């Protein structure tokens, strides 16, 4: 009779994915596979130019066509996904983790700590994000790290605010009180009570945050900041190919499409079925 109750659930079992999340995971896997398999399967060099073969329509030799310098878009896109994905996730993580953490702390502790953190966040928010990013880029020119760090310096507030507001209500709720009385620590309370409530919003923000980071790169490229040829990066590819939007719309569409797949897959992954 002790069967069901007493088989302890595995602690770090893979979370069961619902159908939406499965699609999301599949899309993301596809993207990753694309990024890492292409250099395996094809030996095209993302920096190799052929000025006589610019902006060529996709063909058998060049499955995705060539760009304005005659470089293989397949190779460039794959290398861009590798760079951008890693950097975007890094910047999302470096924004989300402190944002959520501080948000929980502020909402939980309340009082002066809340006010101090809140003021800090508001002040950071009031610092034009663009300014920070531009200045950081100027200080460390051509350094992608600096750019992404600058971007996450701006984006953490988003998480902070959302999390803080929600935490403040949850902390006063009987469910937390009950678990606290039962002797559970903050980590547990966070995992079992706060996180399930916070996750949909936080993950949605994160999904868009990844796109924001890449688009911020594109925006910087648009005002000609942060360029470092011949590195392939999704945002910079968009801006590089912008002048050829009319001649070769399919070329500019490629990095955008990749970003779309990324955003959509993260969004799908973030979505939970309603209770």
């Amino acid at each position, binding site marked *: *009779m002790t069967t*069901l109750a007493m088989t*302890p659930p595995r602690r770090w079992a893979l979370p069961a994915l619902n159908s939406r999340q499965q699609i999301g995971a599949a899309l993301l896997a596809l993207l990753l596979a694309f990024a890492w398999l292409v250099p395996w399967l094809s030996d095209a060099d993302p920096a190799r130019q052929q000025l006589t073969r610019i902006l060529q329509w996709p063909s058998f030799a060049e499955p995705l066509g060539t760009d304005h310098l005659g470089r293989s878009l397949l190779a460039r896109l794959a290398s861009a996904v590798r760079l951008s994905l890693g950097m975007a996730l890094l910047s999302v993580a470096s924004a989300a983790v402190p944002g959520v953490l501080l948000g929980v702390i502020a909402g939980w502790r309340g009082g002066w700590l809340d006010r101090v953190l809140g003021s800090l966040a508001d002040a950071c928010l009031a610092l034009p994000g663009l300014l920070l990013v531009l200045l950081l880029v100027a200080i460390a020119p051509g350094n992608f790290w600096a750019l992404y760090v600058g971007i996450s310096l701006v984006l953490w507030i988003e998480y902070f605010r959302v999390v803080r507001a929600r935490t403040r209500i949850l902390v006063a709720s009987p469910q937390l009180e*009950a678990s606290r009385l*039962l*002797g559970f620590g903050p980590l547990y309370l966070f995992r079992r009570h706060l996180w399930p409530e916070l996750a949909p919003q936080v993950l949605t923000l994160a999904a868009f945050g990844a796109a924001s980071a890449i688009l911020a790169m594109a925006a910087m490229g648009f005002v000609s900041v942060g360029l470092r040829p011949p590195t392939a990066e999704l945002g910079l590819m968009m801006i590089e190919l912008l002048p050829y939007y009319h001649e070769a719309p399919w070329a500019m569409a490629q990095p955008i499409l990749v970003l779309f797949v990324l955003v959509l897959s993260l969004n799908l992954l973030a979505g939970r079925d309603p209770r």
Partner: protein
Amino acid sequence: MSSYLLQAEGLTIRGEDVTIAPFSCSLTPGGRLTLLGETGSGKSLLAQAIMGTLPKGLVAQGQLVIDGEAFDAADTTSRRALWGHRLALLPQEPWHALDPTMRAVSQIAESHHHVAGRDQRASLQAAWADLKELGLPEAGDKLPGELSGGMAQRVAFAAASAGGAPIVIADEPTKGLDAPRRDAVVELLARTPEAAGALLTITHDIDVARRLGGEVVILRQGQVVERGPAQQVLTHPQSEYGKRLLDAEPSRWPAPAPLGECDMAAVVTANGLAKVRGGRELFRDLSLTVRPGEIVGVVGPSGCGKSTLGDMLLGVTRADEGEVRRAAGHSLGFQKLYQDPPAAFSPHWRLSRLLDDLVRRHRLNRSSIPPLMARLGLDENLLGRRPGEISGGELQRFAILRVLLLNPCFLFADEPTSRLDPITQRQTLALLVELARERRCGVMLVSHDPALIERICDRRITLGNESMSVTKREREPAMA
């Protein structure tokens, strides 16, 4: 057939390991039907099936006739037009049913305005009148988070019935109410059939069933075990379960073994407590002690501060004045059973997961769980569900299980059995008393049932009423 206001034919509910067997009923204008029965027997689900609000994963089948119109029970959307106008449901969990950001009076007034079609001013007046009638004149300006359990219950009642629907389904409308309030609500409920409406009530309070009269149905494990006129079923039940149910009324309980002489130090002592909440002084200069193994009853009208007192003793709420001393050395010894069990659980996890967390956290002995579950009448299947997917009574017992696993030295039980049927209630309380005695755990028990307090408590504290006075009366004076 068309003379029936509400008729159900072969209503069944199916879902993952839940089956509620065919249920039929017919209510003429002026008819009253009361569902009694075991917790988890499917009473709430039946009410929801009639409304068409079954939770996801459960489907109803059968035929319904409501106010002369025929419906297929499986078709959930068709009954929407009836809601509020012809069919009203008072949900089981009132705290959850109220919009947390809207003041109580507006939530009632909007029903008057949008459902009953009164104009703005008249609606507001009607809402205030309803509140007064329910003994809540001061609650109108409060937000749901500031209402006590019983207050929320009544506000929800007023909001649900403001539309003046002729068919009313009330799911435990009197739980958490003291006797005078309960009688008032019963009287209000009775108005519906008096005005040629139909009333379907779900209750665990046999007294309420008796007062309402009409037909009584006793359910157990999804089956009807007995039905008939209230008069007959509630005095001479035929079924064995019906007999047991009636026997389990608190007034018929045997008194528990008296608490022997006890000279151990008190687990909780309070001195000169005072608290003002929502601009109202709840108590002043309140002092009390609870000793190991002792069961202290707390009674008082709804909203007088019983829950607040418990929270102060547990250190969850601050007292405005006075001090609370808790016995040292029991970091986990102070526990609480919530008046509103769903609120005390995170809705996202299965019960097995929550239980497992607790076992791991405190390295508890797993083998002690199954016997305790059996004693609480909890089925193992329930562990696979989430808190929102089991009945209110089942969840409350699960909460009791959780708390008892920790061997508390002081337990604040805030109406722990108000959602349980008399039999389960009796078993549960008997268990609680037994464990309290056995493990020397002081229990502070809140209840609205004077008979229940009378039976099982060693001592009783009566909290004041509107006059704000605090009285404290010792039933058994000899307590060193």
